[in-house]
C-alpha cells in the first residue's frame, strides 16, 4: 500500500468519523410515543392527577424528559397558549400534573415534548368535559361573626318591607272607613 492510498484511506476514515459524529443525533432521534391520561368527565373545582407517559419506539420509558401541559387560552381579545405546568418524566417515563377544573365549559388539555438529541418532538391532547357551577373563590378576609350575614340583611329588609305592607293595609282601612262615612253622607266624593 503506497502512501497515497494510505492518505486517501485516512481521509475517508476521518470523513466517516466526522459524518457519524455530526449526523448521529439525527440518525438516532427516533420516534417517541406520548400518551395522556386524564378523566374525561370532571366537576367544576375537582382536582385530578393527569399523567403523561413518554416512551421510545421500542416501548421503553424515557426518563428525565421535560413535558409541558397546556391549554388554548383567551384573555379579552388575546388568544394563545396557556401553560398549566411542566414536569420531568420519572424512571417509568411518567410526568405527573395536578390539575383543577376552574371553568365549567369543556377544556382541551395538551401535553408536549419538544424533543432532544435522541428523541423526536411529540404531542398528545385530550378533551375534558367539566360540569357544575360551584363558587371556587372563597374570601378569607374579614371576620365571621355568628348570625351576622345575609340573614341579618334579610331580617332588616324584611322588617322594613313588612311595615310598608302594614301601611298599605292601614291606607285600605282609611279608605274603608271613608266609604262608610260617605254612605252615611249619601255617597258623595268616594
Amino acid at each position, binding site marked *: 500500500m503506497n502512501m497515497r492510498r494510505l492518505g486517501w484511506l485516512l481521509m475517508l476514515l476521518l470523513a466517516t468519523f466526522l459524518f457519524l459524529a455530526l449526523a448521529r443525533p439525527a440518525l438516532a432521534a427516533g420516534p417517541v410515543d406520548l400518551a395522556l391520561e386524564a378523566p374525561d368527565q370532571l366537576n367544576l373545582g375537582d382536582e385530578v392527577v393527569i399523567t403523561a407517559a413518554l416512551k421510545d419506539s421500542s416501548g421503553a420509558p424515557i426518563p428525565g424528559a421535560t413535558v409541558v401541559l397546556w391549554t388554548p387560552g383567551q384573555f379579552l381579545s388575546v388568544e394563545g397558549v396557556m401553560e398549566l405546568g411542566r414536569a420531568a418524566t420519572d424512571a417509568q417515563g411518567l410526568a405527573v400534573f395536578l390539575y383543577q377544573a376552574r371553568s365549567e365549559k369543556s377544556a382541551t388539555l395538551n401535553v408536549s415534548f419538544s424533543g432532544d438529541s435522541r428523541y423526536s418532538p411529540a404531542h398528545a391532547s385530550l378533551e375534558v368535559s367539566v360540569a357544575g357551577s360551584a363558587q371556587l373563590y372563597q374570601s378569607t378576609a374579614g371576620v365571621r361573626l355568628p348570625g351576622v350575614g345575609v340573614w341579618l*340583611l334579610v331580617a332588616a*329588609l324584611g322588617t322594613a*318591607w313588612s311595615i*310598608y305592607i302594614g301601611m298599605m293595609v292601614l291606607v285600605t*282601612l282609611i279608605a274603608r272607613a271613608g266609604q*262608610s262615612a*260617605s254612605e252615611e*253622607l249619601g255617597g258623595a266624593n268616594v
Partner: protein
Amino acid sequence: MEKVTSGKREELVQTALRPLIRTGMGYWLVVGAFVLVLAWGIFAYVTQYHNGLVVTGMRDRISWGLYIVLFVFFIGISHAGTLISAILRVVKAQWRTPVTRMAEFITVVALSVGALMPLIDMGHPDRAFNLVRFGRWQSPLVWDILAITTYLTGSIIYLYLPLIPDLALSRDRLTENDAPAWKRQLYRIAAVGWHDTPQQQKYLKIAMGFMMVLIIPVAVSVHTVVSWIFAMTLRDAWNSTVFGPYFVAGAIYSGVAALILLMAILRKAFRLGAYITDKHFINLGYILGGFTLLMLYFNLQEYIVTGYKMAGESSFHFLQMFAGQFAPVFWFYVIGGMVLPGLIILLPVTRTFTGILVASGLALTGMWVERWLIVVAGLSVPLMPYEPSVYAPTWVEWSIMAGAFAMFGLVIAFFVKLVPVVSVWEVAEQYEESEEKQAEHAPSPQLPRVPVPALNASRLAANLPENPPSSYVPPVRGGGYEHA
C-alpha cells in the same frame, strides 16, 4: 269668634291651594328654562350612549367621576327631608308643620334623580341587570341598591300619608274651573275617601307613628351603605372607619341647606310668608350650625390622624389635599363650606334670613365639592408607582349634571302644582294646639294671673302671628270636613 276662626282657616286654605289653581308667567318661564336644560342633558346622554364612556373624562385610573359625585350629593340632600321631617315629628317640634312637606318633596325627588346617576355612569343602563344576575350578597353595591330602594319606597309612603287629608281638601275645594278633570280625578283616587272621621284619624296617626320612627334608621342606613361603597374598597384614601357617620352628618348638613334654599324660593314664589316665617329659617339655621361643627370635627379627626402619621399613600393623599392639585377646592370646602357658614350662624348680627340663605348656599356648594374630593381625589392616589392621574369632566358630563339639576327643579315644580306645599291640616292642628295652650294659661277671675312673658314665649315658639285672635280654634283637621 267663630267668624274669626273660619276666616283664619280659610286664609290658610286659600294660600295653600292658590298655587294649584293659578299659574303665572314666571312659573312657565322657569319650567321652560328647566326643560331646555334637561333637553340639553338628554342630548348629552344620547351622545354618551352611542359613543360610549370614552366621551367622558373617566379612564381606567380614575374610573368614577362627576356622575358618582352627583349620586352621593343627591342621596345626601335627600336626607333633608325625611330625616329632618321625621326627627322634628318624633320630637314634636311645634314649628315643623309648614316645613315638613317641602322636606319630604326634596327627599323623594333627590333620591329619584340620584338613583339615575349610577345608571348613567354605567354607560349602557342595561348593565344594571348584571348586578341582579351576578350580584353577591357580600357586595356593598348590592346593599346600596337594596337600601336605596327601601328608602325611596319608605319616603314615598312617608310623603303620601300626611298628604291624604290635603288631597281630600283639594278634592273638595277645587272645582272644574280650578283644576282639569284628570287632576280632580287624581285627588279623588289619592284621597282614598278621606272624610276626617275619628276612625280615619286614628289609622292615619298609627301609620304616621310607625313611618316617622322607621324612616330614621332607614335613612341613616342608606348613607352609611353609600359610604361603605368607598370605605370597603381597597383604596388608601378611603380607609376610614368614620365614613359612615361622616357621610350621614354630611347628608343632613347638605339636606338642611337644600331645604332652606327651597323654602326661601317657594315662600317668595307662593307668598307663604304668613306661614313660613324668618323664625323657621333661623331654627333650621341652628340645625345647620350644629352640623357645621360636627362636620368640622369629623374633618379634624380624619386629617389630624393622617397628617400625624403620614404613612404610605395616605401621606400622598394628605399632601394633594392640603398643598397639591386639590388644595384650592379643599380649602374652599373647609373655609367656604364649613367655617364661613358656621360663623354666619354663630354671630347674631349675621344670623338673619339673608345670612341663613348665604350660609346654606355656601354649605351646599361646599358639600358638592366635598363629594368631588372624596371620589376624584380618592381615586387619583396611584395604586402603583406611576404618575398621579388627572380627571377633567367633558362637556358631556357637565351637560348631564346640568340636566340632573334641571330634572330636580322640574319635578319639584311639577309637585308644587299638584299638591299643597304646606301641610294645611298640620298647620291648622298646630294653631289649635297652641290656642289650647293659650287658653290653659289664660288669666281667670278665680285664678292668679298667668305671667304675660310665659304666654308670649309660648306663642313665639309656635310661630303664631304677633296678634292672633285670642280665642282662635281651627275647627278642622283636614279635608272632608266640608261634608261633616
